[in-house]
């Protein structure tokens, strides 16, 4: 696809894998979502920290400790935890979810190694440790924008790529029985091989997405596609009265009945 950069990775078994790079927009979205989650975590930490501080300070006389010591200890532990959360959030999620964090999952992207393997603890840690540097003055942003493989410093060091996850191929379209029967009739009337795989993809996309279209558009696109394929197949008269949707369903079903080539 022209708009998004792709990379081809050749595995040791000489299999070529194509990946679409994530793109700076998706990475920005992932960052926004992840930082929002992280911010909530840090906020929770801050609430617990201040709650503990107040409680411990009120017990000062019981514990027999100097209030400055308590404060120092608690602050030290709190800062360590905050740093741990900042680094650990990304390391943990990217390791456990094979290169994804909540933000990356939302924006449908994933971190992989340069050789196409899933990301492991080592890569996740390196990426995470360099994150503050990449965030500082948007260094990472400029690296992603200006380099061919769209890598930030952490990606260079860890040897990783950020790619789009495979779009989930939605399941096959359910064709009602009446449309199947019409499909059978159609097979006798037309040469279904005149439909290309691209045409089938268009019909399938319509059948899958029609419920999300506005009502008016549903009718319009259905009519448009039905006319186009009716002309393309040279159908003069239809076997029975039917709606354009039924016609498209029947075509879809009929195409599926071809022996696999």
């Amino acid at each position: 696809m022209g708009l998004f950069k792709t990379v081809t990775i050749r595995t040791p078994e000489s299999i070529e894998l194509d990946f679409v790079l994530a793109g700076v927009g998706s990475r920005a979205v992932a960052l926004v979502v992840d930082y929002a989650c992280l911010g909530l975590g840090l906020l929770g930490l801050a609430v617990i920290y201040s709650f503990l501080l107040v409680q411990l300070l009120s017990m000062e006389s019981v514990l027999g400790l100097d209030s400055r010591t308590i404060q120092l200890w608690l602050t030290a532990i709190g800062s360590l935890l905050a740093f741990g959360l900042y680094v650990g959030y990304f390391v943990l999620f990217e390791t456990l979810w094979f290169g994804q964090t909540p933000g990356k999952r939302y924006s449908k992207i994933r971190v992989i190694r340069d050789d196409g393997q899933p990301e492991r603890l080592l890569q996740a840690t390196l990426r995470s440790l360099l994150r503050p540097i990449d965030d500082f003055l948007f260094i990472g942003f400029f690296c992603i924008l200006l380099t061919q493989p769209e890598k930030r410093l952490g990606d260079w060091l860890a040897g990783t790529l950020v790619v789009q996850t495979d779009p989930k191929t939605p399941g096959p379209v359910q064709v009602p029985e009446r449309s199947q029967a019409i499909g059978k009739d159609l097979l006798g009337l037309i040469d279904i091989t005149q439909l290309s795989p691209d045409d089938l993809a268009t019909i399938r996309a319509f059948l899958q997405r029609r419920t999300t279209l506005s009502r008016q558009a549903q009718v319009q696109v259905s009519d448009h596609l039905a006319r186009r394929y009716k002309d393309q197949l040279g159908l003069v008269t239809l076997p029975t009265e039917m709606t354009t949707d039924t016609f498209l369903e029947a075509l879809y079903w009929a195409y599926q009945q071809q022996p696999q080539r």
Partner: protein
Amino acid sequence: MNPAAQLGPLNPGDVVSAALRLYRDRFKTYLKLSALATLWLLGGLVGLVLLIALPVAMLSTLGSSFLPIIGGLGGLVLGFLALLYGSAKYYQLSGVMGRLVFCDLVNRPETASAAQRLLAPKLGQFLWLGFLLFLAYMAAYLAASLGALIAGGAVGLLIAGMFTALINGTVGGILGGILGLMLGLGVFVLVLIWILARLFIADAVLAIEASQDAGGSLSRSWELTQTSVWRIQIVFLAAFLIQLPILMVTNYFPSLFFAFLPDNTAVLAASQGIGLLLSLLGSVLTLPLWQAVKAVLYYDLRSRREGLDLELRHPPEQTNP
């Protein structure tokens, strides 16, 4: 087969990536248009100032105290017209950018001059749309404030009353105040964001759809964004994040730097001037990005709601989107 027309509905992140990519592909064209648009707006402003200042200055040499006021008022009227014309050109050229991006996206590229010629008769509509948007934003602001006041006030009073009865007046007052304020703020932001998202792509619609006028574009934007307010927010945030580095170089760094300069009128004036120029440069650079985002979003929404991508897969001869 035309690959771009198969794009179909996009992820929020991909909307921004695609917009950035299309912007970069014809960077010079967009930069020229953006600079021109900004100059028109600036020209309108300068015209306003000059048209007021010149008559006042000239007439006050005559020694009368009455004539300069009349001259100033006359200048104000004329200057306001200049400003209106400048803003109309600004909106129109912004529309041209959106149109070019959309045409590239559906593989029917247009040249900048062709798009400008096509949109020339719509100059008045662009100005009218700008005015309508201004009114809509004001209304949104009022509605959001009112909603916040009512919701926050009611809940705040209720909570305050409850806790006053349960504990005492101080706790009730504080709790009610804080919770009411938070709720009010939340309502305010949500309502404002919601309305802004619904009107976000109006100028792209006016530029792309041939038969649309200003009012029609507003309602079309309203209709297309119906189910996508949340996704538009994400797109908006991502685009905002991406323009930050540019603004950092042109706006934030200089103002930080200027803060350390010695306190001296000449230096101050010079730094203010440079700062103004740089921030203008920043807006020239980011304007096409926003227009591109609107155009790609328009394509995305039309694919989602109206199956535009399905119809474009084998474009029948002669359909104008």
